[in-house]
């Protein structure tokens, strides 16, 4: 078995819409190539409308019109065999869903069917992949829930009878009960208060370590990446602009955008004003020529405006897409940001 469990190659996925006679093509994912290794937590960061959600949808084999994969491949190396989710048939996808590949969605409030008891929902999702039934199935679920510190009678409850935190844990439990090899977590901690956030993060980390699964964790919150990710990839305007080990990304970023994202984290004791980035994220239906970040970049030169920099390896396990990466300095001092284990 190779080191990589996921290999994304030249992926392009666009939204193609025809509204009242006007054709619009939004290039949500525009040529992304990356890999995820076994047992690692890979964080994906980016602003809203950067294309990271669309990227996740492709990984999770949840592509629906008007989103369409235009080019590239997404290859998983599961223990049951390799599979390219872009080209796989629905039957092949069904075999890996939930068992090898699962998904934790944003918003625990509404992912559970409001008129169905939790136990039944578990049966809907996990009975087929696990291949157990009746008593054996129930025992497995109860045992798994116990790990998440959920009592067995949660199975008899309806979603609205549980607190927000419990619902979040149920959703994580639902996604992990089959011990999947690959978990995609899409903003699972957004809209949660920090206390619950810490709980959920440690839960995910624990489960990930126990099951030796790989996790792709999407969030715009850099402090969460600092806490949980082994490597971080930054997506901007549908492209991967930097990728590297978490510590490197924080202390020695090689892309101006990353530097800004890291600098935006508050630090106790540091009262200097944070410089804000000019402008707004580009319109993915009509992205700027050359480097897509150039309109907002403090280091932009003519070359940036005309030629799009390729993603190249600049240090150990560290890639960046910037013409002037050598001149990128971290905008903060060596004080470690709150939350990062030094």
């Amino acid at each position, binding site marked *: 078995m190779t080191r990589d469990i996921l290999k994304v190659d030249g992926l392009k996925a666009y939204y193609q*819409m*025809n*509204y009242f*006679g006007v054709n619009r093509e939004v290039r949500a994912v525009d040529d992304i190539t990356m890999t995820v290794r076994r047992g690692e937590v890979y964080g994906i960061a980016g602003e809203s409308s950067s294309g990271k959600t669309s990227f996740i949808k492709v990984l999770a084999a949840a592509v629906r019109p*008007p989103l369409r994969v235009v080019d590239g491949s997404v290859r998983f190396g599961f223990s049951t065999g390799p599979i390219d989710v872009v080209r796989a048939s629905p039957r092949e996808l069904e075999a890996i869903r939930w068992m090898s590949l699962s998904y934790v969605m944003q918003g625990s409030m509404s992912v559970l069917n409001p008129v169905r008891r939790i136990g039944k929902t578990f049966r809907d999702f996990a009975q087929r992949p696990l291949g157990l039934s009746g008593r054996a199935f129930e025992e497995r679920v109860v045992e798994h829930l116990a790990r998440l510190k959920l009592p067995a009678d949660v199975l008899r409850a309806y979603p609205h009878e549980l607190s927000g935190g419990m619902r979040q844990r149920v959703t994580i439990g639902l996604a992990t009960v089959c011990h999947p090899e690959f978990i995609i977590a899409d903003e699972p901690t957004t809209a949660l208060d920090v206390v619950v956030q810490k709980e959920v993060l440690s839960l995910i980390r624990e489960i990930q370590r126990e099951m030796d699964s790989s996790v792709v964790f999407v969030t715009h919150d850099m402090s969460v990446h600092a806490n949980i990710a082994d490597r971080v990839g930054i997506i901007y305007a549908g492209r991967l602009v930097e990728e590297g080990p978490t510590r490197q990304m924080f202390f020695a970023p090689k892309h101006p955008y990353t530097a800004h994202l890291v600098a935006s984290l508050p630090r106790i004791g540091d009262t200097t004003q944070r410089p804000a980035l000019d402008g707004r994220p580009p319109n993915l239906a009509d992205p700027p020529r050359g480097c897509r970040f150039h309109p907002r970049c403090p280091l932009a030169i003519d070359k940036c405006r005309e030629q799009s920099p390729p993603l190249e390896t600049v240090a150990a396990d560290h890639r960046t897409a910037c013409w002037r990466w050598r001149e990128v300095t971290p905008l903060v001092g060596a004080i470690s940001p709150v939350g990062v284990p030094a």
Partner: protein
Amino acid sequence: MISVFRDLIRYNIEFTIGLVLVGLVVAFAALSFISPVDPSLIYLAVPDQPPSAQHWFGTNSRGQDLFWQLSAAFRNSLIFGLTVAVLSRIISITVGLAAGYLGGWVDRVLMFINDIFVSVPIFPILVLFYFVLRSDLDTFTLALIMACLGWPFDARLIRSVARGLKHREFTRHAVFAGMSTRKVLLEEHLPYVMPIVFATFMNNMLWSMALEVTLAVLGFTNLNHPTMGTVLYWSNQHSAIVVGVWWWVVIPVVLIVITFLGLFLLAMSMNEYIDPRSRLRRMGV
């Protein structure tokens, strides 16, 4: 506004068809204003003549030119529908906003009254009104009665929208700034409510015209005031189909179907356009 209209015509086939059909009917009804014959007079023309160059829709057994008769009838029906819709909008908006925004006992009382009206089957009650009032039941009174019976559904819709609005930020700001309740309702909430009002306006027209047709066919309205239904009433009275005067039945029925279909298509397409989710769904196709 015009661009919305243009978009709808160009890309929403239901709207176009609806507009064409309704346009035809309205034009036809408008012709009654230049009618050379008085539609309330009978035995002016030779009865039971099939459609010809002289009488485009033929004549009926009562000696009336069917074309002009129907033109006047449809005009009256459309005006009737509009009247009921306008009157019941007034009631439903008032009740809906008041119940939704003021809440408390006002809401409870109004919703209780609403429930009563919903539980009462409207047709028997209208028949009862006819039974009691007989010839005193002129068209406007009927419109008034129907307006008083037709507001419950829409009032409930408006109420739930108002309830949602009440808790929104901008309402609290307005109240905090000292706006009177009436001003808040009229200036802040009404614009949100208008799309629903507009959609239910068309539905209400359909409903009231349908009821009017039904009552008239049974002879339970003012028969001297020609409407879509009274034409059918008279054709039934004279056993038109059996006698062979098929144009007296078929042509009105076809026109009635066109009218209702057209109004329905308009209402449906406008509803779909107003609801952002359905509009987005069209985008994805």
